[in-house]
């Protein structure tokens, strides 16, 4: 059962302040409406994982790591590698995260990131086949939210793509139906650099990259993932409220522009091929 969430109360004063500033095109932390917070990316944070990145977007801090394995392919895609995204909202990150099985928030976050990567074809899954129908690479992307100050979606997409961009896969030699792990590695090629742009709405006003208080005070958010070719590969409205069709269409152009900019900043440390 999905149940109406009980948001921590943002003090009336704080909320009023957010709205008052918004009316003037300003924000509590001094940013402009369409400005992202400071972004810091640290690659290969977990040396023992095949790929990893620690991303800080303001005070939001997310660690993404990629574990590579070998698995049986799914029956309907015998020639494709397996990609799984999992997100853990660990309780040390926030008083609202609780230990236990994945919450609907963490499931929805993981599934959005999964779609952003899978649909953008950032990873060419057909290049991850070792023996068709029998042995393929499996990439497990684990997102670990370490500090929570809003906009998990955009930060998670950035962390995941950076982690993939650092991923090295072991080579295998094939002998008949058996494979043997070699002591050589190859770099995973990224075919696209998707970025997600998240808007928080307050009545008919909106801003990007909401911090936690802005998220709590907002009516709803809309996230859009843009590919390198300016096409879209994932969109999701989260939370109640409604948006007019015209209001929605307006975001498409904005997202293309903001996406270009964010992509440049977010992926400056990883190379792209393909």
């Amino acid at each position: 059962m999905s149940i109406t969430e009980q948001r921590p109360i943002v003090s009336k004063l704080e909320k009023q302040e957010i709205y008052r500033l918004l009316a003037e095109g300003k924000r509590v932390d001094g940013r402009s409406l369409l400005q992202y917070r400071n972004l810091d990316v640290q690659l290969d944070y977990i040396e023992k994982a095949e790929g990893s990145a620690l991303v800080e977007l303001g005070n939001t801090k997310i660690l993404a790591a990629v574990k590579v394995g070998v698995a049986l392919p799914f029956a309907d895609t015998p020639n494709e590698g397996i990609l799984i995204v999992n997100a853990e909202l660990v309780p040390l990150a926030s008083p609202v995260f609780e230990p236990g099985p994945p919450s609907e928030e963490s499931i929805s976050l993981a599934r959005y990131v999964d779609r952003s990567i899978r649909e953008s074809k950032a990873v060419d899954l057909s290049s991850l086949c070792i023996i068709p129908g029998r042995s393929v690479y499996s990439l497990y992307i684990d997102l670990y939210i370490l500090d929570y100050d809003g906009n998990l979606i955009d930060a998670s997409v950035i962390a995941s793509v950076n982690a993939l961009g650092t991923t090295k896969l072991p080579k295998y030699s094939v002998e008949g139906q058996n494979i043997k792990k070699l002591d050589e590695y190859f770099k995973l090629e990224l075919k696209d650099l998707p970025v997600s742009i998240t808007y928080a709405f307050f009545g008919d006003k909106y801003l990007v990259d909401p911090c936690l208080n802005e998220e709590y005070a907002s009516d709803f958010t809309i996230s859009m993932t843009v590919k390198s070719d300016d096409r879209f590969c994932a969109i999701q409205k989260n939370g109640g409220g409604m948006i007019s069709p015209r209001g929605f269409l307006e975001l498409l152009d904005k997202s293309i522009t903001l996406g270009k900019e964010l992509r440049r900043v977010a992926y400056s440390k990883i190379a792209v091929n393909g």
Partner: protein
Amino acid sequence: MNEKISLFKENGKRIDDRAPDELRPIKIKVGVLSNAQGSAYIEQGKNKILAAVYGPKEALPKHISLPDRCILRCRYHMAPFSTPERKSPAPSRREIELSMIIRNALESLVMTSLFPRTVIDIFIEVLQADGGTRCAGLTAAVLALADAGIPLRGLTAACAVGKADGKVIVDLNDLEDKYGEADMPIAYNPTLDGITLLQMDGIMSKEEIEQALSLAITATQKIHKIQVEALKDRFSVTKREV
């Protein structure tokens, strides 16, 4: 996945003989269950979906209640036999996400402030799935709420739009969902001119999204009319019974 399957025939029709902007046949019946406060049944293509509403009722345990409005609880669930391969009855990650997405779409529709400290339960059971179940389920859930006599801000209808074989289409069936290029479920409230549910996966350009959205609005307006008819039928039956 995404192996080359042709989703359009030579005559420009879709594999089930529809035009790109043509809805599948829709059959809706309101008030189909005896225990639920409100209920509705929808068939859209081969989709067969039941929705039921219980409440408003006291929210227990108390700590889940809200002092200024009622809360919603929503479960979107697929019957084990609704899919080609038997599905475990335990909720999948997809079902958990869709329960949330549908609840979100209903939050602004229900006049929740009329019923503080209460809860409304919304159950959607997909008996047979044929693409677009979250939208058809939402269309039915809105009617179950209306059937339960819960004050709503208009009616919301939902329909997926998307892209297949390079063409923008409406109301994707199972195959178009699986082998097409993009799927964009949308719920739209014509009374308030508001989109309450919006997701997209697959690849679409800005122009294609604009075109798809326009198709979606036309489609949901059509479904909205069928919703109104179904409510009228329910009402007249009640009158006849009285």
